[in-house]
């Protein structure tokens, strides 16, 4: 394939990625952009050209040693739920925009620490980017069939142009926002897309080689066993190899957290924490699929090409060897995808660090002019754009100077070891609040020096001086200073060896310095916030302890410089509303300081934000004890506030309940009082009559005989009334308190009605009222006969009472309804006034409209009747639409 068609394919492919990124930016809220699959696939930026090509090289030359690089992330994945979630929470809360920001904020916005982390990341990532460029360049040459061609000038080198194109892409989609903590949805979408492509293409070529070119895995195995030292390659070589594996796994475990591009995708670009749940199983699965064919492609290459050719490009060379240019192009594009994702995300992450943690805090802060927010944000964006270009160009020169000599795999490991130097201050600092900034700095520098001495220096010297004396004899010829066998440890591979020593000294100095040096109060403050992040997220802005004097107007001025008048004013008004402060507040408190620092962090980094805010406030030093006390107090306040709110809620609920109960009691009491009052009144009436009559009879000897007889008759009448009344009261009380047990028997309703009619026949006859029993059928059901008899007698005598003498007619009737029998007593008396319908069954109720003489009675008859009916689970009521007379109805249910 010629140069031009290859370049055309590259340009078309890049245009497609541009389009995807553009679309994703435009539809930022769409679920196509915001879902756990995109998140997981973006994590697969871990699989760069190193994976795509380098693994096969290792598999061919060292057997299964390529595996540890994937085992580390697989082991790390389940831990994400704990560790990564914590990191994501903290980062979101503090608007962190890079790993340098994260580490420097943990140690109290430490400016130098942020810069140091940035420099280490630069050292660690530049070779890595150059590795990608190397892969592009070499695969390009293979595809174009120009393996012998060596470019003489930069302008002649196609890799240079590819690098420039990548820089344009990263600049375009990476610097749309001044606030670097904003999500880059376009880039992430295109990275996810590329992750799909590179996996598919790799699987396709794997399957093609294994099953098409060869006769499956067993065929490959059989052919391979015939080659030399096959066994040694594919078995673990004792304890020493075991250590190598262990350190490699540890190295890749750390890398999945610490690589700037991994931090970018896994933490900063995380939309929702719950996406992690999918990622922890899907990402290892992705890695597994990616490695399925690695060993077979390596074997196939070895069988086909022998030991001489560059094993890293077997995936490309094999289809080309068999004349399948199409598949080779796919492989090339897959590798190219891996390169693009890695380069763009790495430069994006690095440029943010370089601008926010290196350039702006060291000297550029003064350049930001007041009241020109647009110009300032342009400045910031330009710094980042220039950084992106510089980084990629620098990587290109690194590639020109060193990478050509080294394999992809070894460059990748150098990067890993350097980046791993961040691990102690990152991980230990996350869980141990004693870790101090001095310790972090010392550990990192010492670790870096060891890594440099044992890994970078040997090949640099080799590249420049052309001799490997340093490697064989050590510094000044001292044996124990040999870079690959420091202090006599000579059984580890160079990267594992470098990792072991640098990490040992890094961790040791971190621990030692943490124990002997204490950070200032601010550092301890942030340490608490990070370590105990769960508790402090609730405290929000008040988690920062700060004492001093600051004016809201000064702080606002600083904010305006970066956010513009409109956004600054809006942010402040949101702040005032959130904490219920008056909008004309003049003195700033700790919460506003923290809030403002966070606002600025996204744009200019945490260190710069701190410096800027500090420049307009007069801060007082607070002792450590005070910090911890204040933090403890605010935590407790929140807890006790919560408890108090709950308690007071409980109390108010309780008091409402009490009130209800009290009201009920009062009303019951009142009812009881009224009842007793009425009872007393009712009892007194006949007694009064008896007493008066008796007195008159006793004292008045010459009373006429007929009057005497009348008085005696009155006394008798009143005594009867008294007896009846007492009987009814007791009866009623028994019914109302539920102490009455019904004597339930199978009874004939017709017989009971007949009995009732017999018992009142005398009174009826006396008043000459006619009673008609309308239903002559028998009907048997269960009830207490004595009590129902009482009900019937009551209703009948009531009817008689209200009927006119001689013309009165009373009808008693019953009919069967749905599971109940309905019994009615109707008369042609004066009827019940409408307003009384609801009250006639109340005890001692007397109609207001009763303008005739009060009929004789206890006032309890209907109340007792109602109680008895209800005790039988029935109902009693007065019919409403009766013309001329009253009709009282009650029911007895049956089954």
């Amino acid at each position, binding site marked *: 394939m010629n140069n031009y068609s290859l370049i055309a394919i590259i340009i078309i492919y890049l245009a497609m990625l541009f389009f995807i990124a553009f679309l994703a930016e435009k539809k930022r809220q769409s679920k196509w952009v915001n879902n756990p699959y995109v998140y997981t696939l973006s994590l697969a930026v871990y699989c760069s050209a190193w994976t795509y090509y380098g693994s096969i090289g290792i598999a061919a030359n060292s057997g299964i040693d390529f595996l540890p690089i994937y085992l580390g992330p697989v082991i790390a994945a389940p831990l994400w739920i704990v560790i990564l979630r914590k990191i994501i929470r903290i980062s979101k809360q503090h608007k962190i925009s890079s790993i340098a920001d994260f580490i420097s904020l943990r140690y109290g916005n430490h400016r130098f620490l942020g810069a140091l982390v940035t420099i280490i990341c630069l050292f660690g990532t530049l070779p890595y980017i150059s590795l990608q460029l190397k892969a592009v360049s070499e695969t390009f040459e293979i595809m174009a069939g120009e393996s012998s061609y060596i470019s003489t000038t930069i302008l002649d080198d196609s890799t240079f142009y590819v690098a420039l194109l990548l820089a344009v892409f990263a600049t375009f989609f990476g610097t749309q926002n001044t606030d670097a903590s904003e999500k880059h949805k376009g880039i992430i979408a295109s990275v996810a897309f590329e992750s799909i492509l590179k996996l598919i293409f790799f699987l396709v070529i794997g399957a093609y080689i294994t099953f098409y070119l060869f006769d499956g895995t067993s065929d490959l195995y059989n052919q391979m066993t015939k080659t030399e030292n096959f066994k040694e390659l594919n078995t673990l070589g004792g304890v020493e190899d075991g250590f190598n594996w262990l350190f490699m796994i540890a190295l890749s475990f750390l890398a999945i957290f610490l690589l700037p591009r991994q931090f970018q995708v896994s933490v900063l670009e995380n939309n929702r924490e719950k996406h992690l749940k999918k990622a922890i199983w899907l990402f290892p699965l992705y890695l597994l699929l990616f490695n399925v064919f690695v060993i077979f492609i390596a074997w196939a290459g070895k069988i086909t090409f022998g030991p001489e050719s560059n094993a890293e490009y077997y995936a490309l060379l094999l289809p080309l060897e068999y004349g399948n240019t199409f598949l080779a192009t796919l492989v090339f594009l897959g590798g190219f995808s891996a390169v693009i994702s890695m380069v763009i995300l790495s430069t994006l992450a690095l440029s943010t660090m370089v601008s926010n943690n290196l350039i702006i805090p060291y000297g550029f802060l003064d350049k930001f002019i007041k009241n020109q927010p647009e110009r300032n944000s342009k400045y910031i964006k330009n710094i980042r754009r220039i950084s992106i270009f510089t980084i990629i160009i620098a990587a290109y020169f690194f590639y020109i100077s060193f990478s050509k000599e080294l394999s992809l795999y070894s460059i990748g490991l150098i990067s890993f070891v350097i980046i791993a130097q961040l691990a102690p201050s990152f991980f230990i600092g996350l869980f141990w609040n004693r870790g101090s900034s001095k310790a972090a700095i010392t550990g990192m520098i010492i670790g870096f020096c060891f890594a440099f001495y044992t890994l970078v220096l040997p090949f640099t010297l080799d590249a420049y001086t052309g001799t490997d004396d340093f490697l064989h004899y050590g510094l000044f010829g001292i044996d124990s200073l040999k870079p690959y066998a420091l202090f006599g440890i000579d059984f580890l591979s160079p990267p594992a060896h470098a990792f072991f020593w640098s990490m040992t000294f890094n961790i040791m100095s971190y621990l030692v310095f943490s124990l002997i040096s204490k950070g200032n109060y601010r550092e301890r403050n942030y340490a608490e916030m990070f370590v105990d992040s769960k508790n402090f997220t609730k405290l929000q802005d008040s988690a920062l302890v700060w004492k001093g004097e600051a004016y809201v107007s000064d702080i606002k001025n600083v904010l305006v410089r970066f956010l513009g008048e409109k956004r600054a004013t809006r942010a402040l008004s949101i702040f005032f509303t959130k904490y219920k402060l008056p909008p004309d507040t003049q003195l700033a408190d700790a919460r506003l300081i923290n809030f403002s620092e966070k606002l600025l962090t996204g744009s200019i980094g945490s260190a710069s934000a701190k410096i800027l805010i500090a420049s307009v406030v007069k801060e007082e030093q607070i002792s450590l004890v005070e910090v911890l006390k204040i933090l403890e107090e605010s935590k407790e306040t929140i807890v006790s506030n919560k408890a108090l709110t709950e308690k007071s809620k409980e109390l108010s609920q309780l008091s409402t309940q009490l009130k209800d109960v009290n009201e009920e009691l009062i009303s019951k009491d009142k009812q009881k009082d009224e009842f007793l009052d009425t009872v007393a*009144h009712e009892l007194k009436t006949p007694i*009064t009559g008896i007493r*008066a009559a008796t*007195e*008159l009879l006793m004292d008045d000897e010459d009373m006429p005989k007929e009057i005497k007889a009348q008085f005696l008759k*009155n006394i008798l009448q009143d005594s009867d009334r008294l007896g009846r009344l007492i009987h009814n009261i007791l009866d009623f009380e028994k019914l109302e308190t539920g102490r009455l047990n019904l004597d339930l028997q199978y009874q004939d309703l017709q017989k009971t009605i007949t009995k009732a009619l017999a018992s009142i026949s005398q009174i009826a006859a006396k008043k000459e009222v006619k009673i008609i029993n309308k239903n002559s059928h028998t009907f048997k059901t269960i009830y207490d006969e004595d009590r129902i008899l009482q009900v019937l007698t009551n209703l009948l005598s009531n009817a008689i009472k209200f009927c006119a003498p001689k013309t009165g007619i009373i009808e008693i009737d019953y009919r069967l309804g749905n599971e109940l029998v309905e019994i009615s007593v109707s008369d042609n008396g004066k009827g019940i006034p409408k307003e009384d319908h609801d009250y006639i069954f109340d005890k001692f109720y007397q*109609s207001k409209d009763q303008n005739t003489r009060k009929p004789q009675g206890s006032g309890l008859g209907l109340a007792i009747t109602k109680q008895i009916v209800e005790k039988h689970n029935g109902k009693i009521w007065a019919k409403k639409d009766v013309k001329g007379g009253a009709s009282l109805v009650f029911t007895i249910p049956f089954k």
Partner: protein
Amino acid sequence: MKKKILIVDDEPNIVMSLEYTFKKQDFEVFIARDGSEALEILKHQIPNVVLLDIMMPNVDGYQTLTHIKNTDSLKNTKVVFLTAKNKASDIEKGLKLGADKYLTKPFSVKKLVSEILELL
């Protein structure tokens, strides 16, 4: 001239005893079975004393008393409550409304007569 008494009560047996008693004391006795009947009688008669029950249907004792107090022609008429209600609050209410005496049921006939005579 005979003294006039109006007895207002809805219990016939009690009314009968009272009627007999005051007739013996040489009163001219009027009987009302509730407040509204009493008011009807008071349109034509100006008794010296009204013996008033409280718990009666329609117009009760309190209402009747208020009417008497508001009627100019009855300003010399004494009003005596004779009732079974004997709570302190009831007595206070009755006296506040302007009753001249508050007697409770059951009562002693002799004592009642002496109380009424004393009042006149």
